């Protein structure tokens, strides 16, 4: 269970949002909505532990995440706007790298088949389009055993069929007891989970 308790976010001395709270249990999906600049990305980064909140606390399974960040990092997978892919390496090499860092190599074949990326495995990433690079980045979702996914605009640059693959994966993750927090400008096609408009808490002018 993830509990966000009165989080306030400040960036560069400017207050982005204040007193943001929610609780997400197992099988929970939270979709963050809001206008550009309201703090969706900042909120995801705060939850990931990448940036500290100006105020408030985050609890994971009842424990303040600051007490044991090492354990918390094993439980989360964060995918931001950037894909985390080395453009000079091939797709396979990138996936192998992330497997060695924090993934499960035994899931590699299933992930490759699910995302239908067999044909591009030996291509260097710089030769792929933005959409394909996003697809490769999302393949990591299947290589990870993290219980909480933090996804910032995961469907950006994706074709409709690939977006559907991702949404099915998210639904399966929730069905299997995982938790997903994602920001999106698109309609919630899954029709499950809850939505929060971060703009409501946004204080930046």
């Amino acid at each position, binding site marked *: 269970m993830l509990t966000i308790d009165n989080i306030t976010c400040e960036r560069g001395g400017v207050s982005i949002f204040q007193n943001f709270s929610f609780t997400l249990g197992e099988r929970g999906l939270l979709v963050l909505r809001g206008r550009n600049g309201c703090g969706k990305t900042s909120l995801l980064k705060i939850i990931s532990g*990448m940036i500290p909140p100006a105020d408030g606390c985050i609890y994971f399974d009842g424990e303040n995440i600051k007490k044991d960040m*090492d354990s918390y*990092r094993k439980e989360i997978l964060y995918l931001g706007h*950037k894909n*985390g892919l*080395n453009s*000079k*390496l091939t797709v396979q090499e990138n996936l192998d*790298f992330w497997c060695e*860092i924090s993934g499960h190599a035994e899931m590699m074949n299933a992930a490759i088949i699910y995302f239908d990326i067999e044909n591009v495995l030996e291509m260097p990433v710089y030769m792929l389009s933005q959409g394909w690079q996003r697809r490769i980045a999302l393949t990591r979702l299947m290589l990870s055993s993290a219980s909480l996914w933090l996804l910032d605009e995961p469907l950006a640059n994706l074709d409709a069929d690939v977006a559907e693959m991702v949404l099915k994966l998210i639904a399966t993750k929730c069905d299997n007891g995982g938790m997903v927090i994602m920001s999106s400008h698109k309609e919630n096609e899954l029709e499950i989970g809850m939505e929060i408009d971060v703009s409501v808490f946004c204080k930046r002018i």
Partner: protein
Amino acid sequence: MLAIIKNDIKTIIRSKGVMLSYVIFFIIIASLFPFSIGNDAEILKSIGVGVVWVAALLSSTLTLNRTFEEDYDNGTLEQLILAPIMPSLIILAKIISNWLVSGLPIVFVSALVSLIYDLPLNQILILMLALLLGTPVISTIGVMGAAFTVGLKRAGVVTSLLVMPLYIPVLIFGSGLSQSVIFGYDSEQFMVNMVGIIFIFLITLPLSVWSSALSLKIALEE
């Protein structure tokens, strides 16, 4: 950690001659001096070691920007900081890969460059030993400088200005060790310089690892 080292080395090798450019720059710098000061063998022999060390330091600064820049730009760095891997291991991996692609080649190429300065074989071997001990320190300090400036625009000059003063102690002990044979220093001088380099390494390594990890965290918070 091994994955990061393998990744970095593959990236450099595929970067179309970048690795070669460090070595060529080193050779060019070291080769320029005889043109400017003439070909008096005794003078060249007396300055050769110092020139090789300065060339090693200058060429190492070419590698620094690449240490974190690409990973920062493509999002790999933020993923690594969030991964279940200690940030200190990330830094250690970067130091090792920096040394493997820049420091280690210079150790071997210094033998070639030493021929320009007519250094005898035993002195070349001592020079190579000194560089073998000193280049890891150069990489350690260099990676620290690169971490301090990650994310900055035009960080290249700033990084070089930051690390150059920090290189001075290793330059003093390294060239001192290299010259201990050339100028007939006794074994005590040899040991003092060797222990000096090792001591600097033992001080800078934990400092670099800790401060670099903190710097990366701060850079990613921006």
